[in-house]
């Protein structure tokens, strides 16, 4: 029984992180109808920035790096969208964004390989990584708990931003009908720039938190992208809370799978994904289309 509770809590904590991984991608897909294949590479790039910043600032808890790195990646997202991605966002050919971002992901990957090498790296969270809270016989890691707390914080913040602010309304209007939004005075490309900025700052947060719990190389982006996609497909496209729920499900699947089959890696994540797609193709929170 204790084992199950332990698995459940840790699965949820990991799942929160997977949710953050997915929600940035979900935001971009929902607002722009644009699939960013290079999302995973940005996650890895943020992790590298974290590793080097952490090395340059010994004694600073890497959790504090979340704020400046997220801010930096907001600018990166804004810039990449403005200079590059906006050129294909309105392309009549749906392949154009996929080809562009796929190519961009390869460029990023090889740049990181060239600059950082293939060494396996990770971000050490100092003493925090070993601390845990004891509740009865249960031992819960402090870092996973902080991760979960941050994930929920980001989900709530994003939800409020999108549903309650004028900016969020303009984003939703743009997602609904670009031309009608323009008639109201909204400049879609500006909305896209900000959206990509938000998405990549979420990716950066996910990248740093991932690097604190697992190792990575310049080629880890694909695995992250895959998980991110699975999260939003499971959640139901365009549903933020669905993405969090999807993250929880995948986190649970991974840890429960690992418990019974220690060599499985993230195999059971894909099994869970497959099961959802098979039995509930519209996603957990998605609306069944007629």
């Amino acid at each position, binding site marked *: 029984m204790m084992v199950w509770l332990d698995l459940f809590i840790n699965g949820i904590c990991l799942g929160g992180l997977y949710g953050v991984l997915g929600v940035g991608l979900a935001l971009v897909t929902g607002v722009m109808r644009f699939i960013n294949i290079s999302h995973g590479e940005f996650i890895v790039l943020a992790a590298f920035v974290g590793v080097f910043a952490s090395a340059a600032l010994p004694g600073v808890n890497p959790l504090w790096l979340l704020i400046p790195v997220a801010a930096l990646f907001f600018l990166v997202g804004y810039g990449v969208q403005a200079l590059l991605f906006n050129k294909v966002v309105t392309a009549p050919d749906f392949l154009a964004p996929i080809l562009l971002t796929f190519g961009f992901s390869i460029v990023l990957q090889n740049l990181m390989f060239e600059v950082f090498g293939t060494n396996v790296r990770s971000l050490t969270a100092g003493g925090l990584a070993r601390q845990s809270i004891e509740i009865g016989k249960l031992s819960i890691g402090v870092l996973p708990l902080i991760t979960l707390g941050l994930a929920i914080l980001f989900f709530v913040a994003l939800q409020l931003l999108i549903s309650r602010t004028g900016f969020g*309304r*303009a984003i*939703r209007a743009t997602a609904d009908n670009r*031309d009608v939004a*323009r*008639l*109201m005075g*909204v400049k879609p490309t500006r909305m896209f720039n900000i959206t990509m900025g938000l998405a990549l700052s979420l990716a950066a947060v996910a990248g740093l938190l991932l690097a604190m719990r697992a190792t990575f190389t310049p080629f880890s982006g694909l695995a992250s992208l895959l998980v991110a996609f699975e999260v939003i497909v499971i959640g139901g496209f365009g549903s933020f809370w669905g993405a969090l729920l999807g993250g929880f499900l995948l986190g649970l699947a991974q840890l429960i799978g690992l418990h019974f089959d220690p060599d499985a890696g993230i195999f059971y994540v894909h099994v869970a994904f497959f099961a959802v797609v098979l039995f509930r193709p519209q996603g957990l929170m998605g609306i069944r289309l007629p």
Partner: protein
Amino acid sequence: MKLLEVTGLSVFYGDLQALFDIGVSVESGQTVALIGANGAGKTTFLKAVAGLLTSKRGNIVFDRQKIGGYAAERIAHLGMALVPEGRLLFQNMTIEENLIMGGYTGRKGYWTLAKIYDLFPSIASRGREMPFVLSGGEQQMVAIGRALMANPRLLLADEISQGLAPVVVDQIYKSFPAIRAEGTSIIIVEQEVKRAAAVSDYTYCLLKGRVTLAGRSEALGFDALSHAYFGT
């Protein structure tokens, strides 16, 4: 004073030309009707003026500025609002959010949320509902209200009676005097010739992308009009 002066406007969809050398002008405070059969180019004209169509030639002067090359969002900030054909409300937003979205430019003026609800009492208590629960007429009221929220100097209304019962259309057109009273100029696109003539000061008739008749609405003769409309 001329608020809108369009001269020699030609619009293209790829290799196809949809409008040929159109000239239309709207005085400040005037209501102008654009009539014509399906495919005459009325909607194309409105979209081109509002900046949604970029493949065009000719001059468009709005409020003394040449706006022919401006993007739609920039023209919106200058005080032009379009009620699009088919209403096109934001389906994922409440009625009230749709109206607030109309005021995105932040242009100040007579029209506020409360004033829109006064103008259309039947949507006044329904701000929290989603557009799809409204009747077609109520949706049209929201679409007009959304455009008014921008406090426009020129309102472009595309086929606002489309698909609505005549009694509902009457109700909607009853709001026009209140809109005009604020000095707003209006261009309406309307299939129904009699109604168009009744609410407008000046009428243009389009046929296959060309202006075939233009004149003061009350002076239009039936024969000339039917000739211009059908090209017979």
